[in-house]
């Protein structure tokens, strides 16, 4: 096993046509089994950082490793062990898939030809139940409220049993009670199971759970990295 779940060494990422990089000279090492909060104002590069880690954006310079895999070269192999919840993920009312189908899709890349067993379907229902969405399982995804859609998407991320969970503003439409339940109950379970959680949020109540690392971003750079009880990398 590699030392770190995520490693970025002097990474810069440009969007096409832009001279100024969206993130620049980022060096960051996130140990396995930790909870990292990436904070910063709008436009500071938080989402770009997540997408660079996943290989959805190609870095212009530097080295990116995710779970020991080189990104973007080995991205498709690494992604099977990751889950991602993108920012502002809302679908219109006409979306033709049910909540249960959306969660089941999360397992399709991890199963041969995407076929799900009965055990997999039970796991899908279990995740929906955990997030209080089982009663809405057969409803069209697009007809759920914003907060409900986010819960279903979180269920989809969790059903994959990821080693690395990347969440981009996952609570923006959720009520405080739901947020509190997820952070106080689900996150600790994930961390105990060895999952590394990286959460991007510009509004996060630190009293809910203490992150192991807080990465402050500003203007595309990592301004500061605060370590709680994890040994800082040398």
């Amino acid at each position, binding site marked *: 096993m590699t030392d770190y779940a995520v490693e970025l060494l002097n990474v810069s990422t440009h969007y*096409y*046509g832009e001279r100024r990089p969206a993130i620049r000279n980022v060096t960051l090492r996130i140990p396995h089994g930790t909870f990292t909060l990436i904070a910063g104002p709008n436009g500071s590069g938080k989402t770009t950082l997540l997408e660079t880690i*996943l290989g*959805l954006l190609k870095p212009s310079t530097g080295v990116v490793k995710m779970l020991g895999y080189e990104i973007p070269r080995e991205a*498709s*192999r690494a*992604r*099977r062990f*990751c*889950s*991602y919840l*993108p920012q502002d*993920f809302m*679908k219109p009312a*006409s*979306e*033709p*898939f*049910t909540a249960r*189908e*959306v969660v*089941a*899709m*999360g*397992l*399709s*890349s*991890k*199963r041969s*030809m*995407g*076929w*799900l067993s009965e055990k997999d379907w039970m796991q899908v229902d279990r995740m929906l139940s955990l997030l209080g969405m089982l009663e809405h399982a057969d409803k*069209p995804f697009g007809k759920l409220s914003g907060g409900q859609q986010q819960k279903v998407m979180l269920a989809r991320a969790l059903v*994959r049993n990821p080693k690395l969970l990347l969440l981009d503003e996952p609570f923006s439409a959720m009520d405080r009670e739901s947020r509190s339940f997820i952070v106080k109950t689900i996150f600790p379970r994930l961390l105990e199971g060895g999952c590394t959680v990286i959460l991007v949020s510009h509004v996060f109540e630190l009293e809910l759970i203490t992150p192991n690392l807080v990465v402050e971003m500003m203007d595309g750079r990592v301004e500061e990295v605060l370590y709680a009880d994890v040994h800082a990398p040398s």
Partner: protein
Amino acid sequence: MLMSMLLVSSLIAGSLAGGLCGASGAICNKLNLTTIAFAMAHGALAGAALALALNLDVLSAAMSMAIVTAILLGPLADSLRIPLDLISMILFSAYNALTFIFILLSPGPALMTERIGQLLWGSILAIRPSYILILTILLIAYLSFIAVFWRRLSSMLFDLRLAEAEGINVRLYKCVLLTLIGATIALSLRITGGFLVFSLLYLPAAASLQLFSTMKKLIAFSWIFGSISSSIGLWISLLSDLPVGSCIVIAAIILFLGSITYSRLRFKLSLREAVNLV
């Protein structure tokens, strides 16, 4: 006897081609590939016109152009940094211009043959047993691909970027889908003609969108509506000696208008029932 044989083969071919087009349209619509399919359809037309000018096999040329267009469009848009929709429209314009040039360059006798009519507005006489066999093979390949990889295809239909982020080889599946759609378009050219094949992709999908809200039903009923439109259109063309492609498209439009009307009536009735309950 000959008439009834022609009618039966027309109905079979129409059901197969129309169904394949309808289902392809539903998939293209959900994947936002509408303009790619448009470019592919006109690429197939240009390919067929070139084959006519060079006295080559029309079906092979049409299929090759449709599939090459599908495969190259994405990388072309990426490398030129032009939006996919825009480059599809550029290719559509280029293909249309080339089609007319190739038709004009066709040898004199070719311009007077059935082949030009087939190319532009379709022909019942193009329906031969070999054509039905090829359509059947395509149908089996298409259905098998969708059935075997349904869960992964669903993920792509829901959200392409998220599917990619979860490790699905989106490029590969898209390539296979576009190849199947390209083959569907090229084969359907014979029945509807090059300028109207696009209509058969989208009118059945538009009709089923009025009535159904789950993905499986959308694809299935786009298939059914495509089959019905083609069969009715072919039958009317056979009886009235009007261009096949036009008759099929008119049938599809009538079906679409019917589905809108039914959908509105159903909504008004359910609204009235809800008000009465209150």
